[in-house]
């Protein structure tokens, strides 16, 4: 019991640190690719410290509740994903629970941003849900393929199998699903080709238009958790997971750098272009992967 609680605290702490490090790293790498010097890598942490020391402007009870809801949803998803050997809630649920809970983050944010009744926020929310709808279909197919191939819904078992057989990304049955996951990963993380939810230049940062002070800080922390979830799910399912958090972090860093390169090069899609893209190539690849797994 005590061990489980300690593991939960450790998971949340490590995920927060790694997520914030990734946010800082993304700003630094983007700056270096623009031939700028860039902010220090701790800049997101500095921002959060500042935001907690500002006055807070709330827009109603639902506004406060939605942020807590979204943050709680992200934290719960976090506990189901193994972080090396640390996986507090591994015995229950598994991939099915993650599938259900992954939508709670955007839902809570929509609930709270809707209370602020800013027109830009409404546009941002509608884009967020359209985007979620378009990446959830390939994601469902991918997770279904993985579950069918390993005949289990537990991520821990999948990781343990991969420790013996090698990365599932390298071998035929799951390589299509792995490629499809990489193709939809920018949409899950909300980085550049799919940045239309928070487009600061056209809809003034979308759902976040009315956030200030500690509310913005909590949303930033939720975003950090979200980045961690998206990448660590890929690492655990396709890159063989890891035996300790440090090794997992190195693998996640590699995946994240690839995503950053995509982020630095591409301009922003319009929302219908994004749906068109996500429902064509990644869905097709994920579907082929499912058929291959079913046949072999």
């Amino acid at each position, binding site marked *: 019991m005590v061990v489980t609680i300690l593991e939960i605290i450790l998971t949340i702490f490590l995920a927060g640190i790694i997520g914030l490090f990734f946010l800082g790293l993304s700003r630094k790498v983007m700056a270096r690719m*623009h031939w700028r010097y860039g902010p220090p890598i701790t*800049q997101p942490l500095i*921002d959060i*410290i500042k935001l907690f020391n500002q006055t807070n402007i709330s827009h109603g009870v639902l506004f406060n509740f939605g942020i807590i809801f979204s943050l709680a949803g992200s934290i719960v998803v976090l506990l189901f994903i193994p972080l090396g050997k640390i996986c507090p809630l591994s015995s229950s649920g598994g991939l099915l629970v993650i599938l259900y809970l992954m939508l709670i983050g955007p839902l809570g944010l929509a609930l709270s941003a809707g209370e602020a009744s800013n027109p830009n926020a409404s546009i941002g929310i509608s884009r967020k849900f359209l985007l979620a709808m378009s990446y959830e279909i390939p994601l469902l197919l991918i997770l279904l393929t993985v579950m069918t191939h390993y005949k289990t819904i537990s991520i821990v078992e999948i990781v343990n199998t991969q420790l013996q057989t090698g990365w599932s990304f390298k071998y035929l049955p799951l390589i299509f699903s792995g490629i499809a996951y990489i193709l939809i990963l920018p949409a899950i993380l909300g980085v550049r080709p799919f940045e239309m939810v928070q487009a600061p230049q056209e809809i*003034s*940062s979308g759902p976040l*238009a009315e956030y200030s*002070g500690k509310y913005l800080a909590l949303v930033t922390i939720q975003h950090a958790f979200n980045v961690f979830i998206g990448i660590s799910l890929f690492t655990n399912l396709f890159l063989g997971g890891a035996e300790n958090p440090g090794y997992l972090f190195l693998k996640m860093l590699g995946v994240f750098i690839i995503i950053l390169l995509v982020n630095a090069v591409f301009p922003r899609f319009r929302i219908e272009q994004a749906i068109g893209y996500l429902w064509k190539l990644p869905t097709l690849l994920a579907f082929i992967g499912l058929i291959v797994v079913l046949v072999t």
Partner: protein
Amino acid sequence: MDRNKIGKWLKSPGKMGQKYSLHALYFCTGCGIIEIPPTITARWDAERFGVIPVATPRQANLFLITGYVSVKTLRYIIRSYEQMPEPKFTVGFGSCPINGGMYWDSYNTIKHLDKYIPIDGWIAGCMPRPEAVFIAVTHLWTLIDKGMANGYKKYRDNYQYYRKNQEQVLGKLEWPPLFSIKN
């Protein structure tokens, strides 16, 4: 720059956070818009000082007003300023917000911006070079350190004065007073 001194962070995290995370809201009225893109992009890279542009006043704590302020714009400057969370810092950029500049006898611009909202610092020139923004930011750090960048406190204390000046130019304001007016 004492950004890496952990002792200072532990002593006054709020002040250090405000210093090194200035989220700037650029209110580019007429001129001055051409100086801002080089400042925030590859040529002069404001992000290494922690200054990044944000799109909404709710997320900002540095308000940069560049160029002349017409009466119509003043209305939105005041509204944007009042929406920003405290502590907030304001910098007037260019000679027109200081004293009218070359529009000193124009019928539809205001001459002294600090009559309507409190200003923490000025950048003189018509137009100043983009480097001047960094000089302003480093001066602002000094002011924040000494506790002298207190325009938002002045606005709260002397709200009656500012509101009276605003109503003199704009007529009746359609939004309620931000703070209660003491009579």
